Every structure is written in structure tokens, then in C-alpha cells.
């Protein structure tokens, strides 16, 4: 959907903002301008209400007892799984595993797939855009197994070099772990093309979707990725819940991640028989409330429309890019042709931390630092950046406040 096709009948920014009680907050005596959505998004009243409803009248442990509450909670939890299945357009609900977040989902694949199928001298391909969560687990695996990490380089715009990517493949290549959208720069990677190339070499692909799933429709069957990970708290849901999608045939042959209750069929001291997927990967009592709240968040986002969200956020990105790039002494880092609504920038001679503190005085929340992507910072020779990341409840007026704030910083440091 193109930006000009935004369905304004369905997308009413005033109504959307009214759904988020926290947006009425005053910070430093000024209305909150929340531009740190890539770190964590805010929660609409519908999701807050769902949490209250669950804890008030529905809570019990799941998959265990035969009483009313346990059956109710089990049903709600499994319905949330089906909502995630439809959200990702997965073929089956059993391909959806609830985790603590994207990080745990990636670690699950590292343990369950990597430790079983990647060995000495094998190669794992990552991109230079990865978040630490999609670097460190693979580094740990490489150290344990004697495997090798190969890194896809990028150009000065923050776009991966596809020729170099293709040249990395050889008979030793066993896995590709790739971010769908860069958290530090906003680059949207051409993942469908890259997955098809990897598959031609028989290499399975994990996509880190933490920054993609909240902002655009995702279809894991169309992408044909083997694994897809995202977090609830970046998607208007609570913290402590995330999702790993995996193709059933891969999940079935993988080793369990953690051992415990719910992931077994039978246990004796001699032998344990593991449960079928997805239970095999959900040891112990899961975050039931958080999973149900994630289901409610997905309902909410579907109501707004992911295509509307994508189109509206594109308008915000274009507006902010125009305004910020017009400022003297401000450099935008990450200028890929295909970008999500993230703007990393630096102000000449001002450290991002000072930018963040001074903007906070005007109620403006941005992220400053290395964004858990230090290799990206090294690539652009900066210790840190300031990053404004937008959600569908932000407005052009808020971007104007950000721009005024940047000017104020420049004035103070001139």
C-alpha cells in the first residue's frame, strides 16, 4: 500500500491517540512526546483492560487442572497462539512458540537447532546490521563448536551489499541469521530475496523481526523464512512475552531448549519422552497473562490495520527526514532507500547523551547510545547516536517539537 492510499476513514489519529492513556502524560511540565518506540512501544487501553480482566476473573495455571479457571486460562492462552499464527500468516498454530522475547527466541534456535546441526568449521552468516541479540548467541555457539561467523557488509547508506552477501556462501554455510529491519538505522532488508538465495544453498534462515512485526504486515509463508522472532512489548503488548515462529518440520527435529514441566510426555529416572511442538519448547509455567495480552494487542493492531500503520508511519518518516536533514550541523545516519520509521542522527560537536538530556527537558523521549548494535556504530565511526523512532500514534506536530528541540541543543552548545 502506498502512503497516498492511506485509508483515512479507518485511521483517525485523534482517536488512535485517545486509545493510549500514557500519551496524556506531562513530562518536565510538558506534554510527553514519545519517540522511543523502537525500544518499547506504549499500550492501548484495550490491552490494559484485557490484563485487568484476566487477573480479575480468568487466571489459573494452564494445561494442568480440570477446573473451570484452568480450562478458561488454557483456552485463552491457546487462542492467543492462534491470533499470533494469523498475525504472521503461519500455516499452523503449533509453529508458534511463546518465549520471553525476541532474545530468548533467538537463543532457543541457537540451542535447539544450532547446537544440534552446526559443527566445527561450519559457517554462520550474520549481517553487520544485527542487534547484539542476533550476534552474541551465534558467537557463543561458534566458540563452543569451533564454527565461524561471516558478516554481510553494508554501504554508507546502511544497506546490505547483496553481491557480497551472495559471495559469502559455500558448502560450509549452515545458517543465516538476519534482521528484517535494523533497530539502529531503520534499514528494511530485502529479506525475501536473501532467503530465496540462502535456500538455493540449502541454508535455513532466522529473521529477527523485533523491529518489523509492529510496523508492517508480515507473511512468514510468503517470505519463506524458517524462523521468525519478535517481542510483545514493541507491539503494544507487555514485556516478558515474545514469539518464535518456526517451520514445523524444523521444530520437530530440534532439541528442546529448557527442561521442565509441560515439555514432556512422560518422565522416569531412566528416560524422558518430550512433548510435541509447541509444548516441547515451553517448559514450565509460561507468561500466561502476557501471552493473552499480546493476543489483545494483535487484535488492536488489526483493528487499526497494519497496512494503515505502515502507510502512516511512512508519512511521518518522510516528514521527519525532510525536516531533520534540512538542519545545518545535523547528520542522519542510515539513509537506506527502504526504511522503517527510525531516524538515527548526530549533531555536530554534541554528544548524543547531552541531546537526550536536553530534549527530555521538553518532554521529548528519544534513545541515545549504541542501541545494542555496537558493530553498526563502529561501521559509521560514531560512539553512539541519538535515535527518534516513531509509532502510528505519533504526529507531525511532535516531529516539529523534536526539530525545535534539536535547534535548542545547537543553540546551547554554539
Amino acid at each position: 500500500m502506498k502512503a497516498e492510499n492511506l485509508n483515512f476513514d479507518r485511521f483517525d489519529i485523534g482517536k488512535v491517540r485517545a486509545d493510549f492513556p500514557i500519551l496524556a502524560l506531562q513530562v518536565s511540565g510538558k506534554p510527553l512526546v514519545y519517540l522511543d518506540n523502537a525500544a518499547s512501544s506504549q499500550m492501548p487501553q484495550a490491552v490494559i483492560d484485557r490484563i485487568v480482566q484476566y487477573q480479575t476473573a480468568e487466571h489459573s495455571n494452564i494445561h494442568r487442572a480440570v477446573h473451570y479457571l484452568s480450562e478458561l486460562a488454557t483456552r485463552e492462552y491457546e487462542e492467543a497462539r492462534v491470533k499470533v499464527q494469523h498475525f504472521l500468516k503461519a500455516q499452523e498454530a503449533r509453529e508458534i512458540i511463546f518465549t520471553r522475547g525476541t532474545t530468548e527466541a533467538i537463543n532457543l534456535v541457537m540451542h535447539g537447532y544450532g547446537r544440534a546441526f552446526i559443527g566445527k568449521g561450519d559457517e554462520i552468516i550474520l549481517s553487520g546490521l544485527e542487534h547484539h541479540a542476533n550476534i552474541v548467541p551465534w558467537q557463543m555457539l561458534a566458540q563452543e563448536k569451533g564454527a565461524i561467523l561471516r558478516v554481510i557488509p553494508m554501504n554508507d547508506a546502511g544497506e546490505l551489499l547483496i553481491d557480497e552477501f551472495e559471495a559469502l556462501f559455500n558448502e560450509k554455510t549452515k545458517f543465516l541469521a538476519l534482521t528484517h529491519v535494523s533497530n539502529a538505522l531503520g534499514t528494511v532488508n530485502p529479506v525475501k530475496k536473501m532467503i530465496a538465495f540462502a535456500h538455493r544453498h540449502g541454508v535455513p534462515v532466522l529473521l529477527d523481526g523485533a523491529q518489523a512485526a509492529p510496523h508492517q504486515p508480515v507473511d512468514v509463508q510468503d517470505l519463506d523464512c524458517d524462523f521468525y522472532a519478535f517481542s510483545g512489548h514493541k507491539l503494544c503488548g507487555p514485556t516478558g512475552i515474545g514469539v518464535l515462529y518456526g517451520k514445523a518440520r524444523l521444530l520437530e527435529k530440534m532439541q528442546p531448549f529448557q527442561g521442565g514441566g509441560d515439555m514432556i510426555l512422560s518422565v522416569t529416572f531412566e528416560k524422558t519422552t518430550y512433548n510435541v511442538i509447541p509444548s516441547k519448547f515451553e517448559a514450565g509455567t509460561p507468561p500466561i497473562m502476557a501471552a493473552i495480552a499480546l493476543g489483545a494487542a494483535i487484535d488492536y493492531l488489526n483493528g487499526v490495520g497494519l497496512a494503515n500503520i505502515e502507510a502512516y508511519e511512512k508519512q511521518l518518516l518522510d516528514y521527519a527526514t525532510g525536516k531533520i536533514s534540512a538542519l545545518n550541523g545535523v547528520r542522519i545516519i542510515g539513509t537506506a532507500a527502504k526504511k522503517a520509521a527510525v531516524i538515527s542522527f548526530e549533531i555536530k560537536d554534541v554528544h548524543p547523551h547531552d541531546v537526550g538530556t536536553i530534549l527530555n527537558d521538553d518532554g521529548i523521549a528519544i534513545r541515545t547510545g549504541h542501541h545494542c548494535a555496537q558493530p553498526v556504530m563502529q561501521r559509521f565511526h560514531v560512539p553512539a547516536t541519538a535515535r527518534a523512532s516513531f509509532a502510528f500514534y505519533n504526529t507531525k506536530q511532535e516531529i516539529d517539537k523534536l526539530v525545535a528541540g534539536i535547534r535548542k541543543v545547537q543553540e546551547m552548545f554554539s
Partner: protein
Amino acid sequence: MSDMRQLYQEVILDHNRKPRNFGSILAANRHAEGHNPLCGDHIRLTMNVSDNKIETIAFEGEGCAICKASASMMTGAVKGKLVQDAEIMIEEFRGMATGTLDPDGQDNHLGKLKVFVGVKDLPSRVKCAILPWHTLHAALNPALNPTRTESSISTEGEADPVSDHA
């Protein structure tokens, strides 16, 4: 004066623009590095201590204005001081930045360094101001890191080298 002007006073902005004692001493007999992983602040201190006195001191690295100005003013404040007097200032600066010492109400030796009193209201920035002082403490106490040839400290997490070892 707004809260921000209170913190980013001209003296701090001036030391940020033109840091004093910036660089490194080649024949230093004490050195230490300090990192703040949260924001990428990185300070390297070199100095010469003889007869228990800080004869020369210099710093280099990257950091925010608060960190750089703190390092710049610190080097000026401790140069020529006895080690034990510098240690007292480290404690006092840390107390001021964390709000346990009121520089106007309690006796102290902070002098011009009082301009940093505003950071106590900004928990995320306290570490930036304290980093150079932690690094100085590490450089003055090489025994804190006996396995390393050079002291290296970090202001990440709960670790507080000063209170751990003071």
C-alpha cells in the same frame, strides 16, 4: 534559570569545547581507563605521581559534555595535590553527584566543581559525571586490578569501584 541551564552552565560547556589537560603523558607512571557502556563514554587517564603527589595528569577519550567537562575540571583540581587529598575529593565529588553531600551545606574541598551538583537530579547522567573520578581512583590504586597491567573500570551496573574498595 531552567533545569537544563543549571546543569549545562557556561563553565561546563566551555570545558567541553576546550578541555584542559587533554592528551596523554608519554612517561606516565600511573594510568587507567574508564568506560561507561551505556553511552559509550571512554576516558583514559595518564599521570605521574612522585612523593605521593600528583605532579602531572592528562586525559583523553570520548564522552558527553558532562563527562568531558568533569574530566577536564578534575585534572585541573587534582594536579599538584597529594594522593590522599585527591582521594578525599573523589569521595566528595561522588557524594555530591549522588546527593549524599550538599556542597553548600557541608564542608568540602570541591570549589568550582560544585557546578556539577545538578546531575544528582538526573540518575542516568550521574555516571557520566563520576566516570573520570572512578578512573582516577583506579589509577591511584593499581592494586585494585592486580592481574592487569593497567587499571580498567566500568560504571556499568551496580559495580562501584570507589565504595567497593574505599
